[in-house]
């Protein structure tokens, strides 16, 4: 148990500048620029942090609803860039995968981690397009724009294909997404909503043919969170009418007030609306107390976009309450990441994922 404590510390501090003797590498700042595809589907190894995040709802032939999450996470370390060793840990890759199956009552999850070693085919990323491999796990974008994911976890396996039905959704200002009051607190961020999923899930002795809708986020940055931030609430919803909604807020350590917030809505007709920090509100409605970690998560909440009478009011309902990802024994991270239903006026409007980070302990990113 103790031997794994380091990994947690590693993940938590992976982005902290911590130098004593060696020369620190410099990380590029995030500045507004037009994103260019397919290049920007690929990795941006100069930046400190980057992730590809797939979440979505699946339905089995027996109409059972499942939630899933697949994340590939790239981190550039502060290891001296002058180190010519093939093994120098300049770039690390992590991957998470989770499966939410209400009949189990909790998440199944697994993870992989490795350094990127030159010429080593088992852990690599591509600069040209999304093409990630980590210890047998794979996420790849085909030239036609389809994403293929193959995850062979300890307790389940995912073999899924994701076909886009609409263009990428650039978050923020043309993909420049601010995360705080200071301009450098920003990331490059685009989403790929309304992905049509097909494939199979293996869980236990069952092999389930599935279909569904998914959401992909690709985000990279060098400095995101303010020192005073504890974590964030994020939601990404494929609306039933074909639209898409993303909203997040950064919470302060003290009091849990919002430090920053933003949302973007794409309507069924393709029109896009942005909401600024004072136009996005997350309000907890009901909490769930984790019996494992003792953490309280606002798993039911109200989301309000805009102000006054024109405001859009939604309610967020989890697929199941316990979608806590307790990876203290491996990567150490503890957060809630779950399949949710978006309700408006008591009716279902869409389905997607809610992420509640920093409720266990303040997240440093």
């Amino acid at each position, binding site marked *: 148990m*103790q*031997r*794994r*404590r*380091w*990994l*947690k*510390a*590693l*993940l*938590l*501090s*992976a982005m*902290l500048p*911590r130098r*004593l*003797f*060696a020369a620190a590498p410099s990380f590029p700042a995030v500045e507004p620029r037009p994103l260019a595809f397919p290049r920007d589907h690929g990795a941006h190894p100069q930046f400190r942090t980057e992730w590809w995040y797939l979440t979505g709802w699946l339905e089995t032939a027996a109409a059972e609803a499942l939630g899933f999450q697949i994340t590939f996470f790239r981190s550039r*370390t*502060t*290891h*001296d860039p002058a*180190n*010519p*060793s*093939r*093994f*120098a*840990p300049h770039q*690390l890759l992590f991957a998470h995968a989770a499966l939410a199956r209400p009949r189990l009552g909790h998440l199944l999850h697994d993870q992989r*981690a*490795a*350094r990127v070693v030159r*010429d*080593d*085919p*088992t852990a690599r990323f591509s600069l040209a397009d999304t093409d990630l491999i980590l210890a047998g796990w794979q996420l790849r974008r085909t030239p036609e724009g389809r994403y293929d994911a193959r995850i062979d976890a300890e307790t389940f396996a995912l073999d899924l294909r994701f076909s886009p039905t609409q263009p990428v959704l650039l978050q923020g200002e043309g993909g420049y997404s601010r995360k705080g009051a200071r301009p450098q607190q920003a990331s490059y961020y685009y989403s790929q909503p309304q992905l049509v999923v097909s494939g199979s899930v293996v869980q236990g002795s069952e092999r389930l043919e599935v279909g569904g809708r998914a959401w992909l986020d690709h985000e990279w940055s060098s400095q995101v969170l303010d020192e005073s931030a504890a974590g964030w609430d994020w939601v990404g919803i494929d609306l039933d009418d074909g639209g898409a909604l993303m909203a997040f807020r950064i919470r302060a350590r003290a009091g849990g007030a919002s430090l920053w917030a933003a949302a973007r809505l794409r309507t069924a007709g393709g029109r896009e609306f942005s909401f600024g920090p004072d136009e996005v509100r997350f309000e907890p409605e009901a909490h769930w107390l984790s019996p494992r970690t003792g953490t309280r998560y606002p798993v039911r909440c109200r989301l309000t976009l805009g102000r006054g009478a024109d405001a859009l009011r939604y309610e967020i309902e989890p697929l199941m309450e316990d979608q806590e990802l307790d990876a203290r024994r491996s990567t150490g991270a503890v957060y809630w990441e779950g399949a949710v239903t978006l309700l408006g006026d008591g009716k279902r409007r869409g389905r997607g994922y809610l992420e509640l980070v920093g409720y266990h302990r303040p997240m440093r990113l």
Partner: protein
Amino acid sequence: MKLGFWLALGELRAHPGRLLVALAAIAIGVALGLAVQLINASAAAEFSQAVRATTGQADFEIRGPRGGFDDRVLERVAADPAVAVASPMVEVDARVLDAADAGPNETRILKLIGIDPFRAAQVTPALLGVPADEGDGLALLADDALFLSPAAQAWLGVSPGQTLRLQSGLEAVTLRIAGGLPGARPRQRIATLDIGAAQWRLARLGLLTRIAVRLKSGSEVTAAKARITASLPAGVFVAAPEDADVRASNLSRAYRVNLDVLALVALFTGAFLVFSTQTLAVARRRGEFALLRTLGWPASRLIAYLVTEGATLGLAGGLLGAISGIAVARFALELLGGDLGGGYFAGIVPELVVDTPVIIGFVLLGTFAAAAGSLAPALEIARTAPAQALKGGAESGRGGTVGRHGPGIALLGIGAVLTQLPPIDGLPIAGYLAIVCWLIGGIGLMPGLAGRVFSLCARWLEPLAARRPLAFLSLQRLAAAPGQAGIALAGVVASFALMVAMAIMVGSFRDSVDRWLGRVLAAPLYVRVPAGGNSAFVPPETLAAIAAQPGLERFEWLRIQQLDLDPRRPPVTLMARTLDKRDPGRRIPLTGAALPPEAVAEGSVPVWVSEAMVDLYGWSPGSRQRLPLAGRAVDVTVAGVWRDFARQHGTVTMALDDYRRLTGDEGITDGALWPRAGITPAELAAAIQRATPATRHLDFAEPGEIRAASLRIFDRSFAVTYLLEGVAIVIGLAGIGASFSAQALARAREFGMLRHLGMTRRELLRLLGFEAGGLTLFGIASGGALGLAIALVLIHVVNPQSFHWNMDLAVPWRLLGAVTALLLAAAVGTALLATRQATGTGPVRAVREDW
């Protein structure tokens, strides 16, 4: 047994000194044997556990040359379908610079292991550092941080937060101590760091030294091994974790067995002392025992009583020996480490493992030895008719054995045959048995031989009888009753033979090493990369700078590294050096003729191997072998055999230009430098260090220093044999003392008659002096001959079979002469003292004998 108790107590009261000597001898034997055993068991246990900590849950390991192998092997191994995790490692022994409380000449070598924490977590979790600052997880991947085991922190007097200056190769590297290694063994001194940092900071770019492999559950281990083996380059191989134990045991096995044999010699000595003590006691208490017999004690009870008396003595000695043995082992482990200074388990500081069955075994061995020593005199007294014994002063029946030469001669013959046998399981068991046969056979033949020789002398000296009556009388006496003198003779012969054998063996060895050092240390100045840098080397730039030094007339380079030819054996040394292929004997001491270059087939590379290569790997002269070099199997021809006293596990020498051509490796580890006329070696060394700062971490040494240091190490490792030589002399003297005391008792009537005939007491003592002198001289002559024969076995059988090196016979005449004179004087003195005590109080009260 109440009576027996009082009898024994009486004996103890009467002769506490003698019993104590016998007790001490048993105790020394038990202590020495037990200490060797315990130390080795402790070292092996610690080594094995340390290996476990670094192999963790690996199913097997990939290993290769000490200097490392191409790190691309990792991908090949990881690609095998059965492999779950392949965890790469780079191990480097680095010298710790400015360690807090190291002595001025103490070099502290720390084992650094570069790991990939992501993979190590799944195979060798014990090697994962735990950052002192919990938020500093990135330290595990840092380029400037290391994690120190608790034992290493204590040893170096440092703690997390501080920095450590290390020297790897020629570079000084400063690393911060980011935390500890709580998973390390309590006494394991290691440090781990990121593998990328290790490759870079410790100059091992592109190299790995080990890969720990864990297979997917349910995989076929044998098949995976075979597949992976087939994919590995030459010189890189799959090794099972248990191979490391076998290898560790093989490392020190011969050394250990030889120490065990020395312990048996001490135990034998103890048994002999018990024998002589009991013989004397039996002689003195002849009357008492005869009385007991007539009072109804059967012979068997008497025998049982005497053997019990000896066994009690042995038990006491054994217990004392066990206590001292444990103490000695504890002390030696602290002071010398687990290899008793033999240098086999560097970096391992074992904790004493007290193994109760072993201790009990040694105590029993001591008890049995003493009981066996009592058996002969007990049987003899039991055989004597009580009536005859009661009369007292009668000649003992020991003369009866004189005539029997058969067993002695047979033993000598068996011994001779045994010397011709090959080693058993790599150990010179037959050689040692031959020595035992010769010793026992020789001693057995002594009384009879002595009788013959002395009668011959007496007959020869008969004309001089009138002029030298005392000398003649003593010879007559010796010739007539050789059995009486048996104990004295056996003591002298045994002790002198053992002493001569050890002195000749050690002397020959030292002489051979000394001459060998003279040959291999031909240059006036040597330079080498510091100790512990098992794969450090001087880079070509630095070499060029040294070569350009104006004060340097000539130089020769060596590249020394270790490689494994067999995973279950200790590594072999590969030495590439500047060498004249036509005349390699100028640089390496060949044991025979070498193959000329034209006799080596086209495409094959000539190598000259040490004797161990021939014995252990069958690399006989003229044979063609495959040598793994730079990942390829190179065809080599054994062009000659040379003697290497420095490396007992095998050395392969090749010409440096061949090595460079085959590997492209331009680095060197050692250099021999010849300064220009008028420049001293010290001046040259200083000039090189001034001109080329990169050389300031190199060790410069002149041959004199190297030689003195080597011989100092030699003498230290043979110190225990000097101690045993002393013990051997004590047995000799004890034998003489006991023998003459017994005789004085037995011959009380004879002395009384001689006194009655007008011989003064002084003359009587002179007579006995002559007897003792004659006997000792004879003993020395026969013991010397026997010792020489044993020495030849040690030199030509035991040493080559144990250590795979041959040496030339060199007899240390002066030492032997001095010891002979000393032994002679001491023997006569002891005999006189014993007799004087036995006869001092007048013929009537001559019953109270002692020496």
